[in-house]
């Protein structure tokens, strides 16, 4: 049964990619039916699993090294719900958003495959299988980001996403090899059982390598640069990538493998600090952006950093709790942004204003999402972020103190956006989106409101030290962020415009020149080396081959001359010598008997002299 969950959308993909041109406008219904089926099955599984806690294990033989093994526990159960549920809403929304696109059917084919790959990843119970689905998720993101491939920017963004995530995957793959070498299996259970006996150095090395994969996929420093560009894809794709599939994969992988990571404290520290560092860096960039999708993209990077902090603070449950609640409100925010873009045909904040009057449903749901993201009670983000901060306070205090500025930044950049977009004069001619688009917004808004109340992993109810302090610190900084945004962009009594000329601002607004580093330094270097090697190949290596050919040719030419003048010459010489001597010797044959007698006598005399001397 459980296997059907990824299989249904995969089947929908197969049908749509080959017969989509027949189905045309009806194509989405197949995708919706398939994902709806997956969601229904996920719900069924969850209802059976959550009360009893009875985990599901399925395994089919595959080939010598790994089985097709799947596993559902509370963690993967929740992930299944998130992926199939949010996926379903996004597919429904896309029916409105993608209307009239020339490759309408193909879009739903890719969406289905994307969800199928992610659902497969969630269910995987061994590293090899997980890696395969992991790569397939990357492939789908490539196709979807580059869906409008006629735009060079979209094509480039798709390529960038694939290459950057693959760079991380090299580490991931090496980590898998290392674990396989030391454990002899890819199965999670076998690895977990064998892990305590492994050398600490080996554990640290392999978990760090695995983390490389998460850095790529979950857009952490220094590989996060692909995610902001990924918004070149259609907006529903951004929603899917940012909320349910793709970027959540890295966080999920670490949570799934947490029994292993737990044994490598050094790795966990790295995870936590990379996470919180990324959260601050991305939060700062988000403040400087003026494109609604870019702000949301950097906010995703920042929130993923929070999840990593939770993992690094030994609390996979906090990390995944935030992943789930973030999934709901980030999908909501992206779809809301899509609704605005759909109406205004612009991504720029400058073109937006007064939307609360023109697009009430979109605006209100968007504000719900903003409150959730800022961590306001009672919205979902409040509970999940609080758990992360609590865990950090206890296990990674430096991380906790670094997290406070990131909390401030989060509410600041989100309310900066809201104050610029919703109140005031109406700009342009916005109109509310059709029901097929607003209905998913409403459902997601309800989830963003209510999800926080049921902690998926049954959070610790007992009184913990510092709980109140953490609560007030995070709420206080978040309010401070909102308040500052209100002063600056709401009532506009303070202006920071003059600071835009400072070097620091320019440095942040230029995204720390990280993209430039990759393009000019890494890309340039590889291009240079490959050019040089190509010339080396042609001039030197092939040159040597041609030289060998030339030398042989020259040698054979010499040979020919030798043949003509020396070998043939010798033959001719021999002939000539014989002819010449014959000519000369012929004189002896005079025909006179007297002469012959004379020669005989002379001969006898000579022999006599030689024999007996004089």
């Amino acid at each position, binding site marked *: 049964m459980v296997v059907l969950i990824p299989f249904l959308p995969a089947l929908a993909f197969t049908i749509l990619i080959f017969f989509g041109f027949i189905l045309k406008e009806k194509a989405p219904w197949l995708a919706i039916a398939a994902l709806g089926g997956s969601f229904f099955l996920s719900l069924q599984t969850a209802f059976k699993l959550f009360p009893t806690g009875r985990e599901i294990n399925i395994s089919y033989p595959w080939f010598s090294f790994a089985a097709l093994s799947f596993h559902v526990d509370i963690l993967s159960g929740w992930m299944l719900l998130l992926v199939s549920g949010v996926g379903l809403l996004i597919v429904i929304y896309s029916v409105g958003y993608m209307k009239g696109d020339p490759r309408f059917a193909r879009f739903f084919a890719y969406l289905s495959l994307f969800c199928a790959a992610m659902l497969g990843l969630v269910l995987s119970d061994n590293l090899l299988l997980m890696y395969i689905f992991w790569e397939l998720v990357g492939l789908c993101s490539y196709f979807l980001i580059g869906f409008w491939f006629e735009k060079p920017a979209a094509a480039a963004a798709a390529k960038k996403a694939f290459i950057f995530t*693959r*760079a991380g995957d090299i580490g991931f793959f*090496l980590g898998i090899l290392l674990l396989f070498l030391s454990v002899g299996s890819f199965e999670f259970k076998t690895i977990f059982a064998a892990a305590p006996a492994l050398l600490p150095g080996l554990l640290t090395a392999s978990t760090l390598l695995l983390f490389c994969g998460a850095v790529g996929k979950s857009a952490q420093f220094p590989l996060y640069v692909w995610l902001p560009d990924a918004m070149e894809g259609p907006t529903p794709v951004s929603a899917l990538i940012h909320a349910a599939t793709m970027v959540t994969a890295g966080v999920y992988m670490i949570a799934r493998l947490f029994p292993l990571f737990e044994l490598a404290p050094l790795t966990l520290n790295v995870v936590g600090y990379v996470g919180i560092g990324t959260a601050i860096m991305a939060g700062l960039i988000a403040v400087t952006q003026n494109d609604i999708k870019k702000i949301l993209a950097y906010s995703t990077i920042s929130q993923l950093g929070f999840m990593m902090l939770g993992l690094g603070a030994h609390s996979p449950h906090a990390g995944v709790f935030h992943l789930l609640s973030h999934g709901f409100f980030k999908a909501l925010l992206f779809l809301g942004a899509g609704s605005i873009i759909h109406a205004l045909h612009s991504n720029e904040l400058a073109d937006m204003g007064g939307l609360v009057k023109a697009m009430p449903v979109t605006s209100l749901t968007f504000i719900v999402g903003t409150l959730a993201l800022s961590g306001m009670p009672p919205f979902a983000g409040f509970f999940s972020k609080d758990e992360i901060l609590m865990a950090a306070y206890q296990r990674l205090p430096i991380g906790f103190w670094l997290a406070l500025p990131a909390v401030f930044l989060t509410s600041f950049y989100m309310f900066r956006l809201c104050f610029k977009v919703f109140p005031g004069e109406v700009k342009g001619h916005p109109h509310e989106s059709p029901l097929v688009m607003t209905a998913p917004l409403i459902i997601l808004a309800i989830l963003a409101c209510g999800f926080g109340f049921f902690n998926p992993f049954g959070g610790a109810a007992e009184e913990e030290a510092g709980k109140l302090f953490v609560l007030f610190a995070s709420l206080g900084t978040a309010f401070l962020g909102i308040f500052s945004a209100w002063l600056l962009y709401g009532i506009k009594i303070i202006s920071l415009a003059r600071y835009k000329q400072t070097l620091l601002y320019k440095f942040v607004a230029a995204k720390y020149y990280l993209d430039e580093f990759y393009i000019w330094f890494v890309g340039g270097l590889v*291009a240079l080396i*490959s050019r040089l090697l190509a010339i080396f190949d042609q001039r030197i290596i092939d040159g040597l081959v041609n030289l060998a050919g030339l030398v042989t040719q020259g040698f054979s030419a010499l040979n020919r001359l030798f043949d003509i003048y020396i070998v043939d010459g010798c033959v001719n010489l021999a002939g000539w010598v014989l002819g010449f001597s014959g000519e000369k010797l012929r004189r002896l044959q005079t025909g006179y008997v007297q002469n012959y007698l004379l020669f005989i006598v002379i001969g006898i005399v000579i022999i006599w002299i030689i024999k007996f001397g004089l």
Partner: protein
Amino acid sequence: MLSAVIFTPLIGVLILLFVRKDNVNLIKTLAVVFSLVPLLLLIALAAKFNFAFSGFQWQEVLPWIPALGIKYHLGVDGISLPLLILTALLSVISLIYSWIIKERTKEYFILFLLLQMGMLGVFSALDLFLFYVFWEISLVPMYFLIGVWGGARKEYAAIKFFLYTLLGSLAMLLSILVLYFNTSPHTFDLLELAKIADPRTAALVFSGFFLAFAIKVPMFPFHTWLPDAHVEAPTAGSVILAGVLLKMGAYGFIRFSLPLLPEACRFFAVPIAILAVISIVYGALVSLAQTDLKKLIAYSSVNHMGYVMLGIAAGMMSSPQLAAQSTAISGAVLQMVSHGLITGGLFLLVGVIYERTHTRQLADFGGLGAKLPVFAGIFSFFAFGSLGLPALSGFISEFLIFIGTFPIYPVLTGLSLIGVLLTAALFLVTIEKMLLGPLLPKNNLLVDVDKREIFCLGVLGVLVLLLGVYPLPLLKMMENSVAFILGGR
């Protein structure tokens, strides 16, 4: 049975000789039929293949030149059978694709059938003299295919291909003769040849084989004949060249060097592994700088065959890690099959687009995805196969090679992973330049792939997917044979 497999194409040649030159359709049909028979026979053989038996099956032994101990000895095992099927399959596909050949049709198809016979013979000969004969037979038709039906610099490419390979062949012949005289009574039979006791002689014999096989694979730095031959060869010639002829080199290492010269193999294992890693990284980097699509894919073959050689080099090592080593060799054989299918497909696609645009320069394409969606889909499929996407055959084979070589050469394996990233960049850049972005106006009138092309590519594509998802039957087939070769040393 094996004789029938090998010599059916020859019967086809004899019949074609009596067909009138201008009866083009009959010539093509006959050629396809006679190349199809070996494929069907081989599939029948595979169905009856004894998976539990590690030796050679369906052996045929006849005295040929008894005075010199030369025998007509054929047989297949789990390593040669997949390669034989690959050979027969690619031959049929190439001949079907070659329907477009217009000049000197009769000669073309006759040469192609001769080529098929030579290749099938190479993979089933168990007598080294016979092997050498087939090896040379496969060389000649390819020389003519490049030299007559090739592109602008066809004479240069054909001669380079021929002489370079011949140089290696001669070295191999010397090595074969040393092996022959080393065994008493003198024989060329693989199963009777004795191992060489003197390490220096063994090293020399190994070097002779190495030169022949390394040129054929080709390994850095013996690879420069390949891009020239590929660029000038007609499409079907490129398919066979990349799909089958390169495999003959790697096959030679596994079939002859490994069992006959185990000591020398141990001695040369690390240098070969290093050359393999250089081929992997260097091939990918040089490929990245190419502007000609066919040359680009040719260099990517250097990269892919590098993985094969890395796997074989792991098998050559003396360390007693038999499990890892047999994984590496299985991966190498699987990679040969997979590369044959994928790169064969890619060369067909180059041919498809060349027929329409008469150019192979990347700069002349651009945005083809909008105009030729089916072509773009198929091209992307094979490109992702080539960059090792999971669920396609290239992933499984490279994965097995990495798993097998990692315990033996951890550092070199790690370095070769750079190649994986580079090939990803390579094919994504190629897709971007060719298929994505705005359509160039001059390409506005292009028509998408036709049914014949879809059939050829579809067969290869289905196999790539099948092997990628369920490689078990093929791995089972080679399991015992690989263990036999490694265990027999």
